[in-house]
């Protein structure tokens, strides 16, 4: 009997542990879906993984030179973004490469140089650094160094980035700042399925090499009604998602949703309406939209998941100070966002 009681107690303890772990592993993240359709026509409920899959599917269908490749891509990739594509388009168009990021990037540059559309997957953005030389010294400079004779604009590198809550230090990084320092590249980060499809198709069709960083927390958690047809969204054009006059909140990728939550909080607690801007791309980035918003609100807050020092936030804050001198400008890591939005809206 005593033993049974002990067992029940242990079981209770176990449930409590599991409960605690679940709480510990989940992050405080609310997704705000897009309700506006970028184009008319039929839509389908898709999560961001499916929207990306759809964009690649359309590309492979319409562009016979297009190829999709990377580590474990043949069976669909570890995040399943290439699911079913090999079956549909053959193993010469959707294929595995050896486990070698610098090789993947170099191979992709060569493909694009020879006239193919190259869609390369780096399994995690944390592992893109062996390819840094190829992307920064080669892809970014191919047109420039040849005087416009050669280019690899038909290259798109996709990589899942950002935190999910249990990825630890090597499955959570946001490396956009490193690439934002390389003239010649475009660095694009979508905030959800509709944006991901339109922006990925833009990256693929763009005449410059693009790095497309997919916030992996959104792969399954973000679901929207995505137009079935092909469409593109402009790179380098920020989007105002929520209008307001109290402060301008700037972010990109998953961080946009943190800012939307913070704006909602500011409104309910302080009655302050904050303007939320999705930067869409950190290179090039839309100075005009951000600065126009700040001229109106007089306050600006930039938040990114990537480390603070030398991050794109510093560049944005500096540009804002030049174009729209204002009361308060802060750059933050996401943990601080909510309290600082309140501070910014209330104190400054």
């Amino acid at each position, binding site marked *: 009997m005593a033993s049974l009681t002990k067992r029940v107690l242990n079981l209770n303890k176990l449930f409590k542990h599991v409960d605690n772990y679940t709480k510990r592993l989940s992050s405080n993240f609310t997704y705000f879906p897009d309700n506006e359709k970028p184009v008319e026509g039929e839509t389908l409920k898709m999560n961001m993984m499916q929207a990306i899959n759809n964009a690649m599917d359309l590309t492979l269908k319409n562009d016979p030179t297009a190829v999709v490749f990377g580590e474990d891509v043949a069976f669909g990739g570890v995040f399943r973004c290439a699911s079913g594509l090999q079956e549909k388009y053959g193993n010469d168009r959707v294929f595995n*490469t050896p486990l*070698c990021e610098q090789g993947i990037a170099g191979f992709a540059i060569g493909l694009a140089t020879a006239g193919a559309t190259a869609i390369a997957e780096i399994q995690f953005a944390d592992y893109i650094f062996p390819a840094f030389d*190829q992307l920064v010294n080669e892809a970014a*400079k191919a047109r420039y160094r040849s005087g416009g004779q050669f280019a690899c604009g038909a290259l798109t590198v996709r990589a899942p980035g950002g935190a999910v809550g249990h990825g630890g230090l090597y499955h959570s990084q946001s490396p956009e700042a490193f690439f934002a320092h390389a*003239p*010649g590249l475009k660095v694009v980060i979508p905030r959800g399925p509709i944006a991901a499809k339109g922006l990925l198709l833009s990256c693929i069709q763009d005449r410059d090499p693009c790095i497309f960083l997919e916030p992996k927390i959104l792969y399954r958690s973000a679901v929207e009604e995505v137009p079935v047809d092909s469409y593109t969204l402009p790179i*380098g054009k920020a989007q105002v998602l929520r209008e307001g006059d109290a402060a301008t909140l700037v972010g990109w990728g998953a961080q946009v949703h943190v800012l939307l939550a913070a704006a909602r909080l500011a409104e309910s607690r302080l009655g302050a309406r904050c303007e939320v801007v999705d930067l869409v791309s950190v290179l090039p980035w839309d100075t*005009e939209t951000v600065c126009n918003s700040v001229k109106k609100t007089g306050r600006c807050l930039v938040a990114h998941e990537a480390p603070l020092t030398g991050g794109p936030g510093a560049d944005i804050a500096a540009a804002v100070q030049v174009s729209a001198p204002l009361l308060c400008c802060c750059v933050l890591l996401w943990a601080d966002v909510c309290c600082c939005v309140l501070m910014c809206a209330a104190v400054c």
Partner: protein
Amino acid sequence: MALKSGVGFLRLSRINQVVRLLSTHSRPETIQNGGLNAEFPGAKAPYVTEIKFLDENSYDPIPIYRVLDNNGRVIDSREEPNLDRETLLNMYKTMIQLNQMDKILYESQRQGRISFYMTNYGEEGIHVGSAAALSPKDLVFGQYREAGVFLYRGVTVTEMVNQCYGNHEDPGKGRHMPIHYGSKQRNLVTISSPLATQMPQAVGAAYAFKRMPNNDRCVICYFGEGAASEGDAFAAFNFAATLECPVILFCRNNGYAISTPTREQYRGDGVAARGPALGLRALRVDGTDALAVYNAVLRARELALNNKPVLIEAMSYRVGHHSTSDDSTAYRPLEEIQKWMQDENPTRKLRLYLESKGLWDAEAEKTYSKEARDLVVRTMQEAEKKKKPNWKEMFEDVYYDMPPHIQKQMQHMEKHLEKYQEHYPMDQFQKE
């Protein structure tokens, strides 16, 4: 039981014997376990009951294929390539033109007329031999010491000198240091300074060719034995093999990477030995013998077009300094250089061969050398007078369309130059 069989060097009467390197002749003996191979996903190999570490002495050294001896005589008449008079003369004249260009441009750097230069001495045979064996449609990814390939492809001395001077007629618009040539029209990808980055790119380009209907193009990628130590080299070998790309990975092993000799660059049997280890067909060739290089690349091209990637290691000696920023006598004896300048001189070997065929003589040598020299001198004088590209070119070609932030930077520069123009040599730049 000896790992090393007593076969020694294979008799190299046919080139295909060389391609079958590391054949059963030199494979270590193994005790089979009931004649059954293991079925691991990563290896289907026999089991043995004895530990034997393999090392560089487990195999015979990969032999070096040659056609000509030191006196330009064909060693085995069956290996003499079937080249017409015009091609042979074109090959040799390219070598002379290259030598003259190297001589004069090297001097011009010493006089402060250009900022930098790299000579090609000792590797002329590699350049013309390989270029002659390729189709002009084949795409070339070079490293930086392949000027002879550019000349053979028809890039003019004028274009190359303009590049070295970075004037407004440089196809690269004066953005690169000298010797970073490129020609889209002649399928020569613009040279990049970082080493070995061109290697996985060449493999990717080859994959694009492979997917084109009725493909008749291959890609050749040149790299040095020093560059072969970069991770990109391994990536290229591995991608070429696993993705079965129509590519020739051509190593110019000239003995030195700036000052670092091969002994401090790698161990094992050179770069060629990495070929079979990674699933590439490999061949080692005498890079001072233009005809051997020609045969090697011709055969490699056939293989490549059947999507069988090839690694060629051409052995040579970098007779010149690494670049104008280097004095190689600081790390190698003069006598060593002398030996390679005379006995194993690729230009001399081909000249003796041509003379033996009655296609060349001392008179022709004198006349053509002068012609080649005069062309470079004349071109240089013209290149010097040409203005630098308009300064605004500095902002072009970063992106296909200039984005607003770069337009803004250009406007800032414009305002700055308006205000402070007397502090800049504006007359050296082309007007808009």
